[in-house]
């Protein structure tokens, strides 16, 4: 397996463009659906934990335990319940994406500047208004970091979906491993690594733009 040039993966991708692009598409779809579901579930849960003090302890404890459980274990456990394919893969990836988003939403709101929130209260903002116009914007940098962490992590974990027939670039890695074919293996591995690093860079740029102007760091001008 070692006598072939490892950079042969580039011609392999060019010669198998259609398959490569469809797996890449599948991979991105797995990530997008899982992260989107993760945000839709975890942000409200984080808000709930910040609102209902009794729930905060147990919820962060569960999130902590959930964070500790190995991803392969979650994926393996999804299999007997939901079978193989896209749905159990997304399910396992979503569970994984929940934790960082939940924790960051909770911590972001919890550690938001109390003075600003008090000011909002003083201006007569009700609980919902305070949440939407003070707490969430103040927490947004931390929440975005959580979403970014979840996305980068999901790009990597989505390769494991191949084990339970969920498709994605992991398919190429597994095929390369079983055929002992380094170019195929790297045709999956290298793009996944690039995708993960790229997602990290792109999201950190995009999210910086999404952060309220007054909260952006490194842009303070003497005036």
């Amino acid at each position, binding site marked *: 397996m070692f006598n072939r040039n490892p950079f042969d993966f580039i011609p392999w991708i060019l010669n198998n463009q259609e398959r490569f692009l469809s797996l890449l598409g599948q991979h991105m779809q797995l990530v997008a659906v899982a992260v989107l579901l993760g945000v839709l579930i975890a942000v409200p849960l984080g808000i709930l934990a910040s609102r209902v003090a009794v729930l905060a302890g147990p919820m962060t404890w569960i999130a902590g335990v959930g964070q500790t459980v*190995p*991803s392969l*274990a*979650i994926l393996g456990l999804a*299999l007997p319940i939901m079978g193989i394919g896209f749905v159990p893969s997304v399910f396992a990836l979503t569970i994984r994406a929940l934790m960082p988003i939940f924790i960051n939403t909770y911590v972001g709101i919890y550690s938001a500047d109390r003075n600003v929130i008090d000011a909002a209260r003083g201006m007569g903002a009700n609980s919902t208004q305070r949440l939407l116009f003070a707490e969430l914007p103040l927490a947004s940098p931390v929440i975005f970091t959580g979403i970014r962490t979840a996305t980068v992590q999901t790009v990597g974990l989505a390769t494991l979906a191949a084990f339970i027939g969920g498709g994605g670039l992991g398919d190429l890695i597994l095929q390369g491993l079983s055929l002992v074919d380094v170019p195929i293996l790297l045709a999956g591995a290298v793009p996944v690594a690039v995708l993960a690093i790229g997602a990290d860079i792109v999201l950190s740029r995009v999210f910086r733009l999404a952060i309220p102007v007054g909260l952006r760091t490194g842009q303070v001008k003497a005036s």
Partner: protein
Amino acid sequence: MEYILKHPERMVALTLQHIEIVVIAVIVALIIGIPLGVVVTRLRWLETPVTGIAGVLYTIPSLAIFAILIPISGLGATTAITALTLYSLLVIIRNTATAIDSVDPAMEDAARGVGMTSAQRLFFVELPLGVPIILAGVRVAVVSAVGIASIAAYIGAGGLGLLIFEGIRTTDPDRIIAGAFMASLLALLADFGLKRLESTLSHDRATQS
């Protein structure tokens, strides 16, 4: 669960194999990472490139790292340990640097005042005071290594992941549950144990000062 009860020896053997991979990887990461963390606090210009490279390594998905390493180190435990070491480096370098940076400046001054050299300050003041923070890094590294090591079973490194993969291949939920349960338990126990150790050590520090 039935599988665990029926095959106790196999469970023990796989668990030990799993622990072995994780322990070796984290120790190697400590041997490389702590000196790098120290160097980074002494030569500041190195901080960005060193943590940057470690950060990029950390971002590369585990199955991809395994795959990239296979042409170099082949199938088996060596590749798994190398990959786990690379992953653990980031958190250990970063926490070592943070630990040294967060030493009370008054303490540093006192050490300097009694005539300690830079090396003496490092070994007798900075590193001992930094133990709890470095240990926190070790805990994060160990927990994630336990998780990633289960994937390493696929490339022939053995360990509890083997049961999960066998279960997936033969559609045997019992085996999947046995592997998943034990791997999760191992991660939780490591997290709990190291957290306890951390708080004991930082408590000792607090009472001494």
